[in-house]
Structures are given as structure tokens and as C-alpha cells.
């Protein structure tokens, strides 16, 4: 069999590894940096893959496939595992049937996240094996291995990536054939194993503790916990991406590279450390390994020299090794100093249908706007500045309910996208109705999970496999719950949208406004006739307040970049001067 050699991202490598590991079913919810895994996986012959409404539903579907005898996995970002924590904790008790892996991508540095929690603690919390690759090449092998470990110990396995592994590329070489399962499996009906009523769960918890003892021994034996002998008399214990930085800065040190990190390989590390003068632990985020080792009585150091927040890089690891006295810092070559420059924050795209909503909300003084997770979180930034909270998926509606119950002066308006609404918003819509909340809920239904790259959702009418269905209609859903004041708007009709928003904000009681204009990028970029600014422009800068990347200001007048303008006409609608912004004649794109 000819080996395939190519450059792949960590996420593609995880999909390759899953396929080679004979996984046949996958489910997940998109979230940076994990989103691309299912897109790669679904391309393989004979597999099934699907987006779930949220991570809990995604992981439960993977569990179901495992119980039915098929190797399966779920994908999610770090905060997604909070949502899936409920099935996670109890599935450690039931165990699995066919191999089952939770692929979870943490985001140190918060490239695109609301926190940088370290999910390694979830493995310890649930008492399940934890596997961490360092790059794409390892991801392929480790992913296959995860299924074997899962079946050997009858436990789900947590497979942890980070942004810098998922979104970095490296050369891989692999045999494209898949592994066979170790044994033939079919649907497993077993009351004592899968029905977690207390009488069964009490026994299964004891089982789990016994498995944990075996796992502790296994961690000392597994080949993915590797000692790389060096020349100096100091040792470095490290994992994941940190290994690469440390190895490049200090190639001569003795390395203990941890690939199987829960339970930690305590005995093997004790042997490693025995002959060495000093040993330090280099790990991003929390002192997870350091604590485990210290509890086991090892004299190691770690967070004394390295930050507990943010993402590592070569410079941070070099600085830490220098502070620890392991190396002399290379005082070399930094010859150029930082220059003070304007930051370039991300912005809503030209033509984005969220823009008019935030422009209208910005004009209201006495509103408290609870927001959510998606592109539209950018509505919180100046000059739109129309969002006062963002906590987690779905929180806009429920935070809004609580605020509306106690706040007497400001009207509560909550803003949520369609995918986020289906994720964990629906429940709060029911709550708002049942508890008679006095608030306006705006659901930005652009028919796609846009922020993470345009994955389909229940509002899209297509699924991950491109099968079509009648899209879930949010207005009808709200009415079916019993909510009376439900309205649909098209944001490109600025005046009509403003009229309804203004009216509902003034009207006491619960109302739901579904904003229906689709994402400007999906399924393909919508572009109409561009607009131009005429010499009637008085330089009032009103159009700059809508934060459109196509509009700039030069020589006391607005200027529109025709190459990026989509012709949505929102700037024209907000412009106070008749004829200052016009549709470009004779230019059809």
C-alpha cells in the first residue's frame, strides 16, 4: 500500500485518524478551533457525520452509536464540553460499547473564545483517559490509539487539542487503510451497564474506581508517554504544543513528553527524574501536570517560571527557561522595536444584515441589551456599541429574563443568532413565556452558523450531508409556544425594521422579532449594485456609525469602496442628506 504524504492541519489529521481508527459515526457542534474536523471526516466512504444542535446532543449521539456497536466520536470547542459535561460525567460510569472519543479543542490565548479554561481537568473530574497530541503527525496516530484505549478500558476517552495544534499544519505520512475493530460488536442491551439508576450507578462508580487503578498503571506503560534522553543534567516534562517550543529552545535537555496525561504516568516520571538535578514542567494554562506530580511527592517546578494565562510561544518558553536558570537567554537579534499602530479589530462584513439591527438599537437610550455568541457579538464594539452582556451560548435570553424581572428603568432587549438559539436559546424562550418576562427578544436568523465558517443549522434547510429538509421556522415555533407578539422583519428594509423594533421596545410584555435576512456570505457572497458618495455629502459621519468596512472618510467626505460594497443600502437609509449616497448607475455586478 502506497503511503500518502501531505501537509494537513491538526483538525484534518484528527479526521484522518478517526477514519483510520474505524470510526463510522461522528457528531458535534461547530466551535473555533474544532469546527473543520467533521467537514473533513464526512468526506470518507461509509461514514456518517452530523451537526447537532449543541455539544450535549452531539456527544449523546456519539454515545448512542457506540452503544449500538459502532466506533464514534464527538467534536466541540473547550466551552462546548461544559454543555456536554452532563452526559460526560455519567458516561464514565456506564462506559461504552464500541470505542467512543470526545475530541475537544481548547483555545489558549482566546483567539475566538470567551474564556480559556483548561479542559484537562475534565478528564480527572470524570475519571476518563486523556490523550494529547503535539502536532498533525501525532494526531493521526493518537486518534486511532484513542479508540483502542476506549475499548480496552470500556471508557470514553477525552482527546484534547488546542488552537495551535488544530490550526497548524504539518507533514504527515500515512497508510490510508483503516484498522479493524479488535472484536465484532453489535447493539448492547444491558440494564446494569447502561441504566444509571442509583442501584446500578453505585456499582458502576466502584467499577470506575477499579478501572482508574488499572489506568494509572497503563499510563506508565503506554508508548505515547515518551522519554527522550538528552545531554544536560536537567529535565523537562511537557505536553501538547508546549513540547515543540521547549524542544526547539533547549534540544539538549532530557524530555518527558506526556501524550497520555490522565492519569499521569507517576512511576515512569519518578524514574525519569531520579538521576536529574532539576525537573521543570512546561504546560500552557493551568498547572495541571505540576499539581499531579507534586501531590505524588515529586520535586518539580513549573508555574513559578511560566504564565498561567494566554498562549505560549517560543519567546515565552525561552523566557521561562531563562528565569529557571536552565538556559542563558539569547540576547540576539531583536533589532526592531514595536511601533504604535492602530489596531485592526474584526468587523461585521459589508452587507451584513446584523448591522441595521445594532444601528437601530444604538439609537435607543433606555435599553439594556443582553447579547450572545456569534458574529453579532461584534455589535458590542464601537461605534455600534449596542450590547451590554456576552457570557456563553444562549445566555442572552436567560440573562435578559432575570434582568427584566428586577430592572424597572430600562427595557431589556436580548439579541441571539439562529444557531445559538437552537443551541441553548429555545429553553429560555419557553421560560420567558411561562414567567411572563417583559422583554424584546431579537433572533437574528441568517440561516447559518456564520462565525465558525458557515456550517448549516436547523434554519438552513440542509444538513452536513447536504440532505435537504424544510427549515425550522422560528416565528412559528415561538407562536406554537404560545407567544402572541411575534414579528418577522427584513433588515434591508431599514424603515420597516426600525418601526417594529421601536414599537416593540415601547410595548410592555414579551415580544419576539425574527430578523430574516440571510448571511451575506452564505451560501455564496451576495453582491448587488454598489453605492457611491456624491458631492452632496456634508461630512456628518452618520454613515461611519454603522461600522461598514466599505466606508472610509477622506477630505471631509465619506467614500465607498466599490470593490467591497455589496449594495445593501443601509448607509443610504441612515444618511440624512437626500442624494448624498446613491446607487451607482450602469454598474451591475
Amino acid at each position: 500500500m502506497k503511503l500518502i504524504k501531505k501537509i494537513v492541519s491538526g483538525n484534518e489529521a484528527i479526521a484522518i485518524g478517526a477514519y483510520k481508527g474505524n470510526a463510522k459515526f461522528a457528531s458535534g457542534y461547530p466551535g473555533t478551533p474544532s469546527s473543520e474536523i467533521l467537514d473533513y471526516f464526512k468526506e470518507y466512504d461509509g461514514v456518517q457525520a452530523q451537526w447537532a444542535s449543541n455539544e450535549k446532543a452531539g456527544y449523546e449521539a456519539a454515545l448512542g452509536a457506540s452503544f449500538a456497536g459502532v466506533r464514534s466520536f464527538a467534536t466541540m470547542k473547550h466551552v462546548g464540553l461544559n454543555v456536554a459535561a452532563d452526559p460526560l460525567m455519567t458516561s464514565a460510569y456506564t462506559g461504552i460499547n464500541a470505542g467512543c472519543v470526545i475530541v475537544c479543542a481548547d483555545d489558549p490565548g482566546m483567539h475566538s473564545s470567551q474564556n480559556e479554561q483548561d479542559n484537562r481537568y475534565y478528564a480527572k473530574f470524570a475519571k476518563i483517559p486523556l490523550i494529547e497530541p503535539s502536532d498533525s503527525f501525532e494526531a493521526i496516530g493518537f486518534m486511532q490509539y484513542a479508540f483502542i484505549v476506549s475499548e480496552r478500558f470500556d471508557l470514553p476517552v477525552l482527546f484534547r487539542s488546542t488552537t495551535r495544534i488544530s490550526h497548524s499544519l504539518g507533514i504527515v505520512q500515512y497508510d490510508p487503510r483503516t484498522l479493524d475493530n479488535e472484536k465484532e460488536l453489535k447493539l448492547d442491551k444491558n440494564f446494569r451497564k447502561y441504566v444509571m439508576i442509583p442501584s446500578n450507578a453505585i456499582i458502576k462508580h466502584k467499577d470506575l474506581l477499579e478501572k482508574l487503578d488499572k489506568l494509572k498503571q497503563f499510563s506508565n506503560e503506554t508508548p505515547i508517554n515518551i522519554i527522550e534522553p538528552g545531554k544536560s543534567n536537567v529535565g523537562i516534562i511537557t505536553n501538547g504544543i508546549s513540547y515543540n517550543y521547549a524542544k526547539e529552545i533547549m534540544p539538549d535537555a532530557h524530555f518527558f513528553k506526556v501524550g497520555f496525561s490522565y492519569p499521569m504516568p507517576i512511576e515512569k516520571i519518578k524514574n525519569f527524574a531520579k538521576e536529574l538535578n532539576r525537573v521543570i514542567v512546561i504546560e500552557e494554562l493551568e498547572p495541571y501536570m505540576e499539581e499531579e506530580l507534586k501531590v505524588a511527592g515529586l520535586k518539580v517546578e513549573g508555574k513559578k517560571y511560566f504564565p498561567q494565562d494566554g498562549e505560549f510561544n517560543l519567546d515565552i518558553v525561552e523566557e521561562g527557561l531563562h528565569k529557571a536558570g536552565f538556559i542563558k537567554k539569547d540576547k540576539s537579534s531583536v533589532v526592531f522595536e514595536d511601533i504604535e499602530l492602530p489596531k485592526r479589530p474584526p468587523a461585521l462584513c459589508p452587507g451584513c444584515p446584523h448591522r441595521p439591527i445594532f444601528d437601530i438599537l444604538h439609537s435607543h437610550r433606555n435599553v439594556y441589551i443582553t447579547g450572545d455568541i456569534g458574529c453579532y457579538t461584534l455589535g458590542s464594539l464601537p461605534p455600534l456599541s449596542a450590547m451590554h452582556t456576552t457570557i456563553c451560548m444562549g445566555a442572552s435570553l436567560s440573562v435578559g429574563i432575570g434582568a427584566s424581572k428586577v430592572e424597572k428603568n430600562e427595557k431589556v432587549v436580548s439579541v441571539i443568532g439562529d444557531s445559538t438559539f437552537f443551541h441553548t436559546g429555545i429553553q429560555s424562550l419557553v421560560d420567558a413565556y411561562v414567567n411572563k418576562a417583559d422583554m424584546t427578544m431579537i433572533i437574528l436568523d441568517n440561516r447559518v452558523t456564520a462565525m465558525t465558517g458557515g456550517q448549516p443549522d436547523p434554519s438552513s434547510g440542509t444538513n452536513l450531508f447536504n440532505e435537504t429538509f424544510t427549515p425550522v421556522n422560528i416565528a412559528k415555533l415561538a407562536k406554537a409556544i404560545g407567544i402572541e407578539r411575534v414579528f418577522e422583519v427584513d433588515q434591508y428594509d431599514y424603515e420597516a425594521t426600525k418601526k417594529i423594533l421601536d414599537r416593540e421596545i415601547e410595548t410592555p410584555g414579551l415580544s419576539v422579532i425574527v430578523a430574516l435576512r440571510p448571511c451575506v456570505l452564505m451560501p455564496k457572497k451576495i453582491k448587488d449594485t454598489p453605492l457611491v458618495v456624491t458631492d452632496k455629502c456634508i461630512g456628518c459621519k452618520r454613515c461611519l456609525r454603522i461600522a461598514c468596512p466599505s466606508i472610509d472618510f477622506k477630505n471631509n467626505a465619506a467614500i465607498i469602496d466599490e470593490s467591497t460594497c455589496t449594495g445593501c443600502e443601509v448607509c443610504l437609509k441612515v444618511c440624512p442628506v437626500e442624494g448624498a449616497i446613491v446607487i451607482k448607475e450602469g454598474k451591475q455586478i
Partner: protein
Amino acid sequence: MNIESVLFVGVGGDGIITASNVVAEAFMLAGLDVKKSEIHGMSQRGGSVSASVRFGEKVYSPTDKLGTVKFMLATEKIEALRWIKYLNRDSVVVVNDRIVPIINQTIDESSIDESMKTVDTKVFIQRNFLDDAKKLGNIKIANTVMLGVLSKLIPVEEKFFIKAIENIVPEKIRGINLKAFEYGKGIE
């Protein structure tokens, strides 16, 4: 050979990811080890974008160390300056002579140009590559013209770049990209 690096910087939508994929592929074809890092997510919405392609006999880190980047391809001047700390006097910089406006901010273009003058690296090529691309009939191939310029300075045989373009660039626009690459090689 030591690990060297090509740092691509620009603005979301500039084609940084494709350009860096071509270079990474070229290094692999030349038999070298390669790692590449890129940032997705919020940067898709017009923010700063960067990608780093590191190559050598054995590469560990996918990202760069300050003051060690040998080659920079910048599609915009402010973004070039934002990453200046990664360069050193021996660096090779190819930068597109253009400024992309930033929402809600007025940019002092002359001060940006003043700062550009302080980038006194061994090789510094600043040029309006969009004009070159327009001349060739497609503004989207400016990056490939820049790659052509850079290819003469990177220690990898030209045939690997050409093969990489053939492997990475979709068939529909492959021809014009190969033409742009050739054109770039001709720029002094």
C-alpha cells in the same frame, strides 16, 4: 540547515492562507520538513491575519521567535509594521504598497510611510503589486506576483514553487497564477 521562516501578514480576505499553503507545499516537495500556523475565527471578519511557514531539516514550533524571521510577505503596510519585531537586519521583506482603511479610525498615511523607511532590512521591496496584477488582468493574483519576487530569494528550487502552485491553486485560475509567478520573477 537551521529552521527558517516565511511570515505572511495582511488583512482578512487578502489570500494569506492560500499564499502560505503554496509556500508550505513547495518546501515539502523540496524534501524539507515544514510546519505552518494560521489563525482562523475572528480574523475572517476583516481583522489582521498572519500565517507562518517554518522550514528546515526538522521543525518543531509552528510559530516564530522574535527577531528570527528571514522572509516576510506583507499584503499591506500597517500589517507589515505590526510584525516588525519578528524581523532582523538580514530579513527579506516584500510588501505591497497599500494601506487598508480601518473602521472608525483615521490613518495618518504619511506617518506609516515614515515608519516603513525605518525597516532597513537586507532586502526590502515595496511596490504596488496591485498595479502589476491589474496589468495581468486579475487583481486577485497580486500575492502570486509577490511570491514570484520572493521565490528568487528563498533557497528552494523554482520548479518546486511551480509544482506547488499546480497542486494548491484551483484549476480555473492556475494558468493566470503561473503567469503571475513568472512575472514576479522578472521584477528586479
